[in-house]
């Protein structure tokens, strides 16, 4: 911790010296993330300095806005109506930095940074879509998550949160027609031409209902024969407004929603959320709970990778792998069900621990599985990874370098396939990951094949971690005894009135978190999944920002697909491993 604060002080003084104290204001109390406010005039320079300067904050991890107008506890920040937060990551130093920009006015304007980071493009579109903040200099400021005909900006505080606050929804024939017309792809909007000197281009609408776009993802392709000239991804078909829902649910009540962000990640999604709350509430989680969390998270990593593996082979035309993997998935889901009572979305982690203790006989089931699965993995290696057609289809396809990966905000297996061993479980261990022995598999080429290979190896490492959990499961409580633990341990609340009241409040009204900001990211199945929580001292979150890995990954598709053939695009899409719920939230 001290090392982190030293680093923070050094960096902050370097920046203040360079840009002048009047422009830089530090905000304390944001955990280990260095946070400061910067004047609008200096923003570009500060970002440039951080990106190109000595510390190389090469990755724009997240970019989002907060509607500050209704916030009560604002003593530690400048007066503003909206704030935009630029979160940068230096992989080299394993250090986060958060730059905040204060904006005044109902529909303020900010300068676009899409020239500095490629992936800022979509993030800025999202902010415009959600808040109506205009970015000057943005190449294509269109709606991204909501439909093109949408009226209003949903994450603004005046936008109604519940359907009951609005008139009933209806759609007549004309509106339907208008909606459909609005969805028509016009190449001119994207700056694409209809023909070149020697050929007319074909525009192919791939999705939102296409067998291999893994959900409702639409991508309009500019084609010359089967060769892709350009691509225009269209997302938002799976947008549920999870971040808005978070502002009306209690802290506890939002947990089930997190399960469905990356719907293959199960309880792994709960983890960053409850960790962020625990950081805010300063709850110490007992060791047993931590170990259970790690074990289940790794189970879900395997489950998610299994599905990836199967669909990857399937998208390349190999039908059988997915059926074998589904049988293995069934086995593991059976264990998950025995432990948590649910299969894909257990919502089983709680603020301060997990929902229940492990059932009797859990260790036998887990042991059976981890003894059984490695042999199967070896079999699939022969079936799929060593198959020469698979290699021909994927080696050298969709290749990118580490530099490109950082520039586009790629994390997870996609980053590790380029040779970078950045894994949050090792880089900044959470939930006791420092106690486990495992390796970070990396590959060198950064192509479709390597991305799959890395995931296959990760399954083996996850098995290793699960075995360690199994052999060293600590005894003790499965939930903390902190008053904000929700729901609190019932045995204590039967003893005295104070804990009884606390119990009653936590389960009825919901726990009240102290005003704070917290950010926790975990190495989720698909990359870095981070929750930034803003508490304004109430029973709901003031703002919940969900940083999902798939969002920037998907943005990279046009970059990867230019010049390849249509089947290669399918291989690229398959190798990225995204779920649309994770993109759209």
């Amino acid at each position, binding site marked *: 911790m001290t090392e982190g604060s030293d680093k923070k002080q050094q960096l902050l003084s370097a920046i203040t010296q360079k840009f002048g104290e009047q422009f830089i204001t530090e905000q304390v109390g944001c955990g280990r993330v260095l946070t400061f406010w910067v004047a609008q005039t200096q923003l570009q320079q500060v970002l440039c300095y951080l990106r190109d300067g000595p510390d190389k904050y090469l990755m724009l991890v997240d970019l989002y806005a907060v509607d500050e107008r209704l916030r009560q506890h604002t003593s530690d920040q400048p007066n503003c109506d909206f704030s935009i937060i630029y979160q940068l990551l230096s992989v080299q130093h394993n250090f986060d930095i958060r730059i905040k920009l204060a904006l005044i006015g109902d529909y303020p304007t900010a300068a676009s940074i899409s020239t500095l980071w490629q992936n800022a493009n979509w993030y800025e579109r999202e902010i415009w879509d959600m808040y109506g903040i205009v970015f000057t200099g943005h190449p294509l400021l269109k709606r991204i998550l909501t439909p093109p005909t949408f009226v209003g900006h949903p994450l603004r505080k005046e936008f109604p949160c519940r359907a009951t606050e609005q008139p009933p929804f209806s759609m007549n024939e004309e509106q339907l027609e208008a909606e459909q017309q609005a969805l028509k792809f016009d190449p001119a909007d994207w700056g694409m031409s209809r023909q070149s000197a020697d050929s007319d281009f074909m525009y192919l609408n791939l999705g939102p209902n296409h067998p291999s776009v893994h959900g409702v993802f639409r991508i309009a392709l500019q084609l010359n024969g089967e060769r892709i000239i350009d691509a225009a991804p269209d997302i938002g078909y799976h947008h549920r407004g999870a971040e808005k829902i978070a502002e009306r649910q209690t802290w506890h009540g939002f947990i089930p929603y997190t399960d469905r962000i990356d719907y293959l990640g199960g309880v792994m999604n709960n983890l960053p959320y409850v960790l962020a709350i625990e950081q805010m509430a300063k709850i110490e989680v007992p060791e047993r709970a931590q170990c259970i969390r790690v074990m289940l998270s790794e189970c879900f990593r395997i489950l998610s990778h299994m599905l990836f593996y199967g669909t990857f082979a399937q998208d390349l035309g190999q039908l059988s792998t997915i059926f074998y993997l589904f049988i293995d998935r069934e086995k593991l889901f059976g264990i998950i069900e025995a432990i948590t009572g649910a299969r894909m979305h257990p919502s089983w982690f709680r603020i301060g621990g997990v929902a229940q203790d492990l059932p009797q006989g859990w260790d036998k089931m887990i042991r059976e599985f981890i003894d059984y699965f490695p042999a199967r993995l070896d079999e699939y290696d022969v079936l799929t990874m060593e198959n020469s057609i698979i290699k021909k*289809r994927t080696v050298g396809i969709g290749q990118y370098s580490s530099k490109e990966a950082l520039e586009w905000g790629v994390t997870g297996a996609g980053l590790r396939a380029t040779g970078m061993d950045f894994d949050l479980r090792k880089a900044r261990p959470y939930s006791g990951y420092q106690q486990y022995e495992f390796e970070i598999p990396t590959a060198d080429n950064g192509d479709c094949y390597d991305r799959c290979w890395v995931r296959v190896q990760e399954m083996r490492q996850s098995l290793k971690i699960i075995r360690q959990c199994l052999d060293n499961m600590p005894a003790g409580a499965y939930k903390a005894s902190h008053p904000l633990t929700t729901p609190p341990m019932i045995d204590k609340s039967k003893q005295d009135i104070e804990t009884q009241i606390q119990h009653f409040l936590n389960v009825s009204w919901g726990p009240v978190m102290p005003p704070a900001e917290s950010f926790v990211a975990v190495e989720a199945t698909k990359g870095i999944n981070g929750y930034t929580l803003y508490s304004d001292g109430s029973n709901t979150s003031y703002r919940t920002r969900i940083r999902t890995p798939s969002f920037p990954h998907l943005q990279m598709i046009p970059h990867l697909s230019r010049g390849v053939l249509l089947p290669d695009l399918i291989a690229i899409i398959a190798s990225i491993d995204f779920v649309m719920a994770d993109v759209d939230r």
Partner: protein
Amino acid sequence: MHELVTPVIILLILLLSAATLTWVERRILGLWQDRYGPNRVGPFGLLQVVADMIKLFTKEDWIPPFADKVIFVIAPMIVMIMMLLGFAIIPFSPQLQIVDFDNGLLFFLAISSLSVYSVMLAGFSSNSKYALFGALRATAQMISYEVFMGLSVMGVVILSGSFSLREIVEAQSEQWFFIPQIVALGIFIIAGIAESHRAPFDLPEAEHEIVAGFHTEYSSMKFGMFFIGEYLGVILISAMIVTLFFGGWQGPFLPPILWFLLKTSVFVLFFILLRAATPRPRYDQLMSFGWKYMLPLALLNLLLTGAYRLWTQ
């Protein structure tokens, strides 16, 4: 009467077995992929075939408004008719063959070339982009592989000295042709898969890339005809493999017709196994594989067989 009854019976049996093959394929795939397949309707799910037929016949027969109606309707018929015609020359047993052309083999090649029209016309008349992709792929793929298919069987023709399938079978009484013509067999099988566009060469209908390819817009029994046509194609190619390389009806103990059916079933199963096992190559890889490896190999085989023949005479 006899000349009329036999073809009709064979026709019915063929249609029935093509329909049953849809069930066989799903059950066998199920077996290989550790799952059940259709096992609910009737004993072992056998009536699934009937259920599917009822479904296909009673579904709305929809012709997209943007399609070219006449060609759209004709296209699926072509494939079925061509595949059925192809069986006319197959010698099922010494007694059972609808017609024995002197140049039966050429007839077979002509028939399988004509079936390209079905796919091509279906794709073009659908007037949809995915169907167009499918048609383009299918046309290029089938025409290319036609070449190697034709060249590969010439070795058999040289050895037997005849284009008549019956004579080719009879010429194998001493030794089945797959032994001297092992290379040709490989080429013929690969070309046969490409011709019937089955996995792994199912690029014209690769669902993960171009949805359903040339039959994307088809529904009801018109889709059913493509479907049956594909399975007839599988049976036809298997029957041809048996006739050309595995001695046709010949074999000890069992009656000839049984031998023929047995050998054909083995290759049908092989086709299904391929689908369970292999991924799909990319379109350009498939084409370059054909022209860069298959063609020289087929030519070389032809040359060597010819030389051998001249030398032994």
